[in-house]
């Protein structure tokens, strides 16, 4: 008999501990391995010409400025459309709707949207926005497709943020005689702002990394628009490949140098976005408290 003051090591337990530590270490090493490998292979490729130039067979240059611009176009346009709709939906669900069939249908639809894979969004975007609405391969087609894709992300984050606003704020405002919309505008939305911003940043991260939904919607051109206001706006109706699409195309063509160069740029953006959301959450401590 072992004494109760003496801890007996069960050999089976020790093995489980080893397995648990091994699995946890695996994730960390995978991440480090990916970052180091991509940096090693790609950092030499990234220079001023690569970032600000355009690929030209004539001049023999490789550059991704067009792809960076396309990515920015799609981010800005998508967020301009998706943010108001997503926030509005969350406000409706949290502040106006009474529990019932409509609400559960909306919530089920939001859940479903977030579960649909991006290739399906791509197919739908190509058929509906591209063919039925006649936008063909263009930045706008890609934008509309991605709006549907990131909508659940924004709605859900805004809803979470609205839930953390104390009810006393609402009753206080209503008690002072303000209308509901006035109360939402001046009290609820400002208080929920950190959550909304977090949702927006997460959505931007999703857009930056997206590829399957854009391949058949936004197209693949890496050219820069001509200088001037008119071409700048007209670009929205033209094909434009984002960074991820260019990475995919470069890799398919065996141009691994360019592919890894883009991978470095993408990793930097994605890591930056991740740290930004962390910093935000810490600063406002809205999401951090729940753990």
């Amino acid at each position, binding site marked *: 008999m072992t004494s109760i003051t003496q801890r007996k090591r069960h050999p089976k337990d020790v093995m489980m501990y080893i397995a648990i530590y091994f699995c946890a270490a695996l994730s960390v090493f995978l991440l480090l391995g990916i970052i180091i490998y991509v940096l090693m292979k790609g950092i030499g490729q990234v220079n001023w010409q690569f970032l600000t130039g355009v690929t030209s067979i004539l001049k023999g240059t490789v550059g991704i400025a067009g792809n960076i611009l396309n990515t920015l176009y799609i981010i800005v346009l998508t967020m301009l459309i998706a943010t108001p709709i997503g926030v509005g939906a969350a406000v409706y669900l949290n502040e106006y709707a009474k529990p019932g069939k409509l609400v559960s249908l909306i919530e089920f*639809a939001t859940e479903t949207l977030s579960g649909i894979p991006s*290739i399906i969004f791509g197919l*739908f975007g190509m058929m509906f926005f591209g063919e039925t609405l006649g936008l063909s391969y263009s930045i706008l087609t890609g934008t509309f497709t991605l709006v549907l894709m990131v*909508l659940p992300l924004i709605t859900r984050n805004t809803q979470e943020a609205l839930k953390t606003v104390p009810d006393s704020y609402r009753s206080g405002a209503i008690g002072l005689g303000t209308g509901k919309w006035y109360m939402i505008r001046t009290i609820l939305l400002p208080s929920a702002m950190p959550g909304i911003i977090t949702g927006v940043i997460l959505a931007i991260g999703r857009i930056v990394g997206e590829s399957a939904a854009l391949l058949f919607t936004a197209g693949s051109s890496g050219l820069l628009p001509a200088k001037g206001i008119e071409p700048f706006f007209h670009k929205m109706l033209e094909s434009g490949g984002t960074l*991820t699409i260019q*990475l995919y195309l470069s890799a398919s063509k065996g141009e691994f140098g360019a592919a890894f160069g883009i991978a470095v740029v*993408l990793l930097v953006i994605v890591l930056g976005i991740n740290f930004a959301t962390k910093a935000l959450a810490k600063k406002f401590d809205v999401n951090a408290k729940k753990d």
Partner: protein
Amino acid sequence: MRKGETIAKYIFLVCAVVAILAVFSITGYMIYKGTPALGSVGVTELLFGTEWAPTAKDPSYGIFYIILTSIVGTAAALLIGVPIGVLTAVFIAEVAPKPLAAVVQPAVELLAAIPSVIYGLLGKMILNPLMYKLELLIFADSTTHKYTGGANLLSAILVLAIMTLPTIINITTSSIKAVPASMKSASLAVGATRIQTIFKVIIPAAKSGIMTGVVLGVGRALGEAMAINMVAGGAVNIPLPFNSVRFLTTQVVSEMAYSSGVHRQVLFTVGLVLFVFIMIINLLLAKLKKKGEVEA
């Protein structure tokens, strides 16, 4: 004033209805575009045919192996991903000292944020050559094996396993954390070791949460397109580890651009099959969620 309030209310309602409209139109379009081929090719020939030769003189459009590849690939990826994911979640939620958990959890979140084309690129550069070496070793004496250069089902499975890890880990971690501390202390108090407590008490209690994570992982793996398109090769074959294969997703990605006529219709049907799988998973998730609410 009153009028403004009513207008505001309806504007918010319209925003909320966008999600419903989107789901309905996506469903409608997938069915509308995906069903004609079932008629023109024939349901059994299309879904259970094993020959894929869309550009041949006498074309055949059997997608059975493609469906099978998606099922086998997803199942195998989860067979690898779930145990690793659950053990990692156990580490984060129960075993790790705080500073270590504070390293592992953010690392997992970052893994989730890495774009799938980067996974594909790395798979192509690292996994495929490794697989090729393995292939040369295993099939050294074979005269019938078609060499794939390492772009095969096994590479795709490994990439999928890695890509589903974050989903499984995150959901499992929070469901383990949600298990009441009293259950844990009761188990420890009757003399169970920490490992016994974890595997006999905590994990069974967190079962429905873990199931949710697994189902979400299945959805993620089924829907992944770009990464596996870069590592799985480009021919429709029986899903055997060293065969070059096509998944439902990669079939669409790689052939949509140049397809036309019936070939294109069939690709939409491939999309519809994927969509049906995903909808089944969504319904399953809704059920699991309801069950979780009842248990809580």
